[in-house]
């Protein structure tokens, strides 16, 4: 099974990388962009008996290591 984890800074936490990319887009003429957030994607291959079990397991991984929940949120997508 494959798990796709997206980690990104929480709403309200200023994202310095997003701000820099936003600025760069603006200077390239893409002036219709109102906000940019830069996160990271972590793709895991794992064994699990069900998608539900996989999701629970990956959620634990996010809480302990993959995300710093003081500043970051995460989303999990499980793919067969």
């Amino acid at each position, binding site marked *: 099974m494959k798990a796709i984890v997206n980690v990104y800074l929480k709403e309200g936490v200023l994202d310095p990388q997003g701000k820099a990319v936003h600025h760069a887009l603006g200077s390239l003429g893409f002036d219709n962009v109102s906000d940019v957030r830069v996160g990271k994607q972590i793709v895991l291959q794992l064994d699990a008996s069900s998608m539900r079990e996989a999701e629970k397991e990956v959620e634990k991984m996010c809480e302990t*290591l993959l995300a710093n929940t003081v500043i970051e949120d995460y989303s999990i997508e499980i793919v067969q």
Partner: protein
Amino acid sequence: MNVVVLQFPGTNCEFDTRYAFERLGEKVTIVWHEEEMIPANTDLVVVPGGFSYGDYLRSGAIARFSPVMKAVRSYADNGGYVLGICNGFQILLESHLLPGAMKRNENLHFVSKHQYLKVENNDNRFLRHCEVGELLNIPIAHAEGNYYIDDERLKALYDNGQVLLTYCDENGDPDNPNGSVDNIAGICNEKKNVFGLMPHPERAMETILGSMDGVKMLEGFLA
């Protein structure tokens, strides 16, 4: 005094830190991250600067789970003194031994220069030889020193006297090199036995290196 300096893969300030405490006449032992124990007679654990585990995932995120960190946690829980410098500060934040988190510097640059700091609180072991409002000239060198904490916890930091050092210029006016909340450069935990700062006092131990202001900071830990 017996000082333990931790060493992770990617740590690069352990020998400077040992040199600094040896200059102050103290005994220093470097302890590899795979050790599950720290010596029983330890008076201070220093988590030094560097790039533990290549800063992969987040600075300090992987070092936090090293076997030695379990020993450091119980040492701190029993009131032992712990000092995290730069990457060491990041490791203590990731370990939740200190509150808050680090983000990339606001300007995304790796900042490496001498920086003035203002002492905000000296009612603690670390800064007890410094005066409140005193300016210290200490080198900084980091890409992720943009300290973040939410408003509620920030207020608690102030209420408990846990904001120890802020960034300023030579006149004491705010001068923020990284976007850190309220210009914060260093904090401690509520019990005031765990300390973290981004600047490097161990690099300011002799005039030939531009400043000796690190001496009175590190001397705070001496008996």
